[in-house]
């Protein structure tokens, strides 16, 4: 039974949120923030896989997000709605309700393939040099989209709200919210199991000592491909959801600023800690919203918080530990796989 505690709790929480949204008990603004919290959890946990567990420094996470966002959005708009550019809808708009998860996953797969652009150079390069490569990939993605006039170029791409409406016309529930909650659950579950298996711990061995890992039987190239593709693929899914929350995307959203936001969440929460990444994604999103009245001054206050954090707690809030390490009593309810013999 203990194995399912987290699953049941998460399902209950999701149900409460969905009911609240369905019954219009919370205003759309709060709901949107809740969805951004979800997106940020996916972004920070997936980036944590590369930056925290594998010890590389990826600064181009938004690039993968952009790939996912554009692939999912373009597919959906092309398939389910009639536009001037793509012509009439290929499939009936009502089928979007079934095919939305499919296009979402296709966006993730596309982003994972772009992740290879970083994974392959990582065989020979690491550290600062690889960070520059990730930055370059981010710019390549952004500039490529800007120069593709078919999908709107620098003006951006829209029409996703039509898809969401089409889904809601069939069954009137908050679909995007449901898929955000599902994706968050799947992401955390997937990453948790991956990093707690001996297989996944191979990437931690790469962080600690790559030469020893390679000589002591870890296929470092394969593990790097797995880690980068998994990380960028999940970012792609986050991008697809992000596009459908806003209903409009443009390449300018996915710059290094967005990547930095994800980075800040990883370092705030603590490298190599899943619960830390979740905690910081939630708190940073809320803090940023909370400071919205400060307007531009927000970008002074928040970085200041970061400086203070780096001075007094450079390892982040959790720092290589999980909740169950900080509060061992929780282990009665949540098994912490791999910590016990």
């Amino acid at each position, binding site marked *: 039974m203990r194995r399912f505690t987290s699953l049941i709790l998460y399902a209950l929480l999701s149900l409460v949120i969905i009911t609240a949204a369905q019954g219009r008990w919370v205003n759309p603004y709060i709901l949107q923030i809740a969805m951004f919290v979800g997106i940020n959890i996916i972004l920070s946990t997936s980036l944590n896989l590369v930056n925290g567990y594998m010890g590389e420094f990826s600064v181009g996470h938004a690039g993968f997000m952009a790939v996912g966002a554009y692939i999912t959005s373009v597919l959906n708009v092309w398939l389910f709605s009639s536009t001037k550019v793509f012509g009439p809808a290929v499939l009936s708009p009502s089928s979007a309700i079934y095919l939305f998860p499919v296009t979402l996953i296709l966006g993730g797969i596309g982003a994972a393939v772009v992740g290879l652009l970083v994974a392959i150079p990582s065989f020979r390069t690491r550290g600062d040099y690889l960070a520059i490569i990730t930055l370059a990939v981010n710019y390549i993605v952004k500039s490529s989209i800007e120069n593709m006039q078919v999908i709107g170029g620098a003006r951006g791409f829209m029409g996703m709200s039509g898809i969401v409406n089409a889904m809601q016309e069939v069954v009137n529930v908050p679909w995007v919210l449901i898929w955000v909650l599902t994706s968050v659950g799947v992401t955390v579950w997937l990453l948790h199991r*991956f990093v707690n*298996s*001996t*297989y996944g711990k191979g990437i931690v061995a790469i962080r600690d*000592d790559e030469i*020893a890992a390679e000589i*002591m*039987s*870890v296929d470092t190239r394969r593990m790097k491909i797995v880690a980068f593709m998994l990380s960028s693929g999940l970012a792609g899914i986050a991008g697809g959801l992000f596009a459908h929350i806003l209903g409009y995307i443009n390449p300018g959203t996915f710059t290094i600023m967005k990547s930095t936001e994800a980075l800040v969440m990883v370092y705030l929460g603590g490298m190599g800690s899943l619960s830390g990444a979740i905690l910081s994604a939630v708190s940073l999103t809320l803090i940023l919203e909370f400071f919205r009245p400060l307007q531009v001054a927000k970008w002074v206050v928040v970085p200041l918080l970061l400086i203070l954090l780096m001075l007094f707690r450079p390892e982040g809030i959790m720092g290589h530990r999980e909740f169950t390490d900080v509060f061992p009593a929780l282990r009665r309810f949540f098994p912490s796989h791999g*910590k016990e013999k």
Partner: protein
Amino acid sequence: MALLEIREMTHFFGGLRAVYNFNMKLEGGELLGLIGPNGAGKTTVFNLVCGFYRPTEGEVFFQGSRTDGLKPHEVTALGMARTFQNIRLWNSLTVFDNLCISQHHHLGYGLWDAVWRTGRYQENERRVRRTAEELLEVLGLSHYAMEYPKNLPYGFQRRVEIGRALSIRPSLLLLDEPAAGMNPAEIEELIELIRWIRKEFELTVWLIEHHMRVVMNVCEWIKVLDFGETIAEGPSEEVRKNPRVIQAYLGEEEPAYA
């Protein structure tokens, strides 16, 4: 079939000849020592054998298949394990995890199994864990299983590294200066340990060492390197008396100039 055969292995770092015309044949079961002054190319030989460097010239055969040009983890999978001169344990992982991850090459499951915790995952994970537990037990390290290696005393870190190498289930164990930085008591224990693991695990052990006490007590056969070239080879007692070896270690008597 020889366990390990090295034929005319030569390696250059740019213009520097690090190893020259190295030949060796291990039938299996030996306890071989590789000695030589600092910078003689001993560790380079290990790095060449385990696949970390690719020899400029020459061939390496392990278990009957050619291994020069293979990646290190592929050579390891054939049953060759090593330790490092400066301990290279994974310090943010527990001792227990260190001994599990080194079995990566025969984990027998992949991402899919890890995520779904399939039967294959459960079964293999149990096997890997059991191997690690047993090794920690016989090495007297069970007490430290959940510790991080960096918190352990130096001698124990060396022991963990040997344990990690053994978890690969090797047929050939390369030890790169296992006694470096140890005190005399720890060295005595190490000598016992090396003899014991060789018998217990039926291994061939090849070690690099500076401590003559370890070399003379443990090794049956010694090879001496100087400037990348083999200058002497033979049973321990013979090599010790070899004038070329004494010269390489102590230096030549220089003629006095007026």
